[in-house]
């Protein structure tokens, strides 16, 4: 059953009780939370995801709840817990929904060594997955969010899950995280985009999440073959420019942007090697989203 078919009341009840279980790409998660904003976050952004019954295996048990301290009356906070412990320090109460997203990113990135996990967004068209890698602030989320608004399938934002045994990119089509001016850029670019509550003053600045297209969520059991690795760089006023990058350089740049490259050792190196061998690699600078999307759509045709 899809989450959108449940009433807010029953979602809030599940979250406050035994937890709400969701299928997210290859993962089953169970979330407990007494925070109303977390329920609203799910209703707004996770409507197309399936709710699981009690008979499934749960990969990650997480909770977002205020700590039991006197401080809750002065400066309320929330904790993220995983398996009953707290991997992070508490954050201000208003950041609860974003904390859920960040915490779940961490759960996946640190416990899924069946994948090589690249700090990159991945989108797909015509069976071709494009991987957008790069340091935070390079505009990879903005670019992939815009592409998704124009009909590309969202495989994942924040992390690309590259399966080491079949070389495919596996979907986790969770909401796309947009920061600071990206929020306005996407709002203008696609007025239909659904963006959840906005949180100010986080470590990353102002943060909001864009709802993934229902069609991406519905196809989240289908992995895709990576064909391009692109390192985007948003530069105001710049031309749209796609510059080929040698496979060796691409491999080194990717290695710097992996979450578990060192944990995988030689397997990780070999996995990146196969990825770079099988894809075309580029540096990409842009300032105009329409031009960028037209170029990539052409490349994927």
């Amino acid at each position, binding site marked *: 059953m899809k989450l959108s078919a449940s009433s807010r009341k029953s979602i809030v009840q599940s979250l406050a009780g035994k937890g709400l279980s969701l299928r997210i790409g290859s993962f089953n998660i169970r979330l407990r939370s007494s925070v109303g904003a977390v329920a609203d976050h799910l209703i707004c952004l996770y409507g197309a995801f399936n709710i699981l019954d009690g008979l499934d*295996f749960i990969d990650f048990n997480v909770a977002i709840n205020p700590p039991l301290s006197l401080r809750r009356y002065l400066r309320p906070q929330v904790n993220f817990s995983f398996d009953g412990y707290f991997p992070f320090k508490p954050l201000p109460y208003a950041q609860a929904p974003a904390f859920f997203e960040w915490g779940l990113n961490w759960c996946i990135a640190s416990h899924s060594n069946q994948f090589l996990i690249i700090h990159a967004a991945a989108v797909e068209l015509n069976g071709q997955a494009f991987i957008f890698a790069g340091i935070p602030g390079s505009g990879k989320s903005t670019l992939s969010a815009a592409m998704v608004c124009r009909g590309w399938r969202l495989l994942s934002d924040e992390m690309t899950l590259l399966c080491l045994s079949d070389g495919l990119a596996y979907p986790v089509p969770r909401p796309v995280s947009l920061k600071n001016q990206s929020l306005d850029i996407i709002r203008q670019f696609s007025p239909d985009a659904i963006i959840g509550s906005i949180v100010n003053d986080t470590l990353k600045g102002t943060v909001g999440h864009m709802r993934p297209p229902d069609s991406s969520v519905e196809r989240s059991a289908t992995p895709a073959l990576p064909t391009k690795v692109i390192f985007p760089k948003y530069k105001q006023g710049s031309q749209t420019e796609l510059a080929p990058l040698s496979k060796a350089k691409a491999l080194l740049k990717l290695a710097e942007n992996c979450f578990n490259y060192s944990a995988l050792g030689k397997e990780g190196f070999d996995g990146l090697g196969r990825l770079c061998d099988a894809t075309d690699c580029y540096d990409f600078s842009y300032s105009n989203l329409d031009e960028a999307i037209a170029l990539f759509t052409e490349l994927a045709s």
Partner: protein
Amino acid sequence: MSLLRTAFIKPESVLSLDLPQWSQLIRHARRANVLARLGFYLKTAGILEKIPAQPLLHIKSSLTFAKAFECSLQWEIHCIEAALKPLDIPLVFLKGSAYYVAGNSAAKGRIFSDIDILVPENRLLEVEVALINAGWITSTLDPYDQKYYRQWMHEIPPMRHLRRQTSIDVHHNILPKTCKFSPDANKLLANTVQIPGTNAWVLAPEDRILHSATHLFNGGEFEQGFRDLSDLDLLLKEFASQENFWTQLRYRAEVLNQQTALCYALRYTNKILNTPIPPEILNNAANRRNAKLSLFFLDLLFVSALQPGYGCHNNPWTEIARFCLFVRSHWLKMPVSLLLPHLLKKSLKQMNKLIA
């Protein structure tokens, strides 16, 4: 009995679990920091590939991590050896790193954050200076903490490597000077074993067990209690086949003043993990604690505190037991005349921090 305990005692038992039970088992194993060790058990039993795909991914993922951990551990040990080589002292590894260099089964799937070494007390300063020269720095600059460690503890304040961010605890004994069970460190050092072909040394097998026991049962930290108990279980099983092992173990416990810790180690590994221990040894250990009532309470506390899965199956009793044992560990650590000023000082500092 918890699923995790059952799985450790009888790995084949996992084959009959349904998916929700698997979720619980993986969660508890991860929480107790023994997921990779569970993987090692299942692998040894030859049933790893028979378990359902979803939990198998998590177990394999942790085994991958454990492999990378071993690799970085090996490098870290190499760096410590290189840093201390000019001093020409036998470098004695303790606990996790000792199990690793000695190739003990207790090293399998054991993930830990600090490397512990034991050096003669009169060489402490040289060791510290050599480590500083090689890039380690002290982890606390607080003058009270510094003094507290150096005056009363069995180790200097933990050191951290500036670049690698790895930690090392340099010990000169296995218990604080203030603890009434504190052994004569020279007797430990005189009995160490060299790992062939290296400059790495470890405590003798019996002493290794006694150290593991005293660390668990005199310490106040039970977050990793189940993992530590499993270490003892694996060490006891591994060494049990050695000639005169049990006699020697009891003899060393006496020499090192660790009879009580050994009594608990035998009692609770046997109670919780069914570790095979000869009945006369076990009874003898129990009789040492002749006060039946105190043993009754200790059973209540230890059996609860050593349960895996703290924090996820909401057993308040486990938390209460752990708190009581935390308090107990402080009683054991130092006489009241030292403990009270120390606690007072610590709480004042804590309050200052809150106000500031």
